[in-house]
């Protein structure tokens, strides 16, 4: 996934990338693996500039699914710092650009929550539940959103 030009560009645009090798950097892997509870490879963490983990990707993913997870992680990070408009932008981007990935229904759910948090308007939750009746019906995220109907 790290040879895909879109992945390389996205990481270059948004991240400072750190690689910790299980064998070649055994001591560092042990130290950071314990700090972030990483016990398997590949484990990829989205960490904010304060060192807080905001998203975790475990196991190999193809490029589109990986990009979707990275964008989802940036959305979760913005949400965590209460920047709900920025969070919603990232979540909507996941749904629009990577609609066929596992990240998309999760992003659709959180896009609705982020808009609600930004506006206080519960209609955004209802609209999200309605959208889940059109797509991703069989996912757990649709089930979670069903209470907003």
């Amino acid at each position, binding site marked *: 996934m790290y040879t895909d030009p879109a992945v390389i560009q996205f990481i270059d645009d948004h991240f400072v990338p*750190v690689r910790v090798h299980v064998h070649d950097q055994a001591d560092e892997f042990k130290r950071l693996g314990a700090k972030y509870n990483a016990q398997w490879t590949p484990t990829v963490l989205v960490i904010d500039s304060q060192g807080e983990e905001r998203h975790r990707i475990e196991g190999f993913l193809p490029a589109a699914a990986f990009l979707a997870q990275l964008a989802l992680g940036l959305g979760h990070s913005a949400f965590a710092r209460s920047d709900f408009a920025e969070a919603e932008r990232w979540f909507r981007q996941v749904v629009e650009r990577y609609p066929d990935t596992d990240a998309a229904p999760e992003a659709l759910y959180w896009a609705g929550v982020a808009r609600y948090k930004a506006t206080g308007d519960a209609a955004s939750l209802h609209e999200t539940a309605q959208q889940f009746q059109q797509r991703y019906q069989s996912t757990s995220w649709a089930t979670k959103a069903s209470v907003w109907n």
Partner: protein
Amino acid sequence: MAVERKEIGWTHNLEDALEEARSRLRHVLVDFTAAPM
């Protein structure tokens, strides 16, 4: 004309990466890997 192939500029020190992330308003991506380096 040859096209330059861009690669990810991995670093290997988290603390330095966090400092850079703060100065450049970035996040840090940490990849725990067993892949050949």
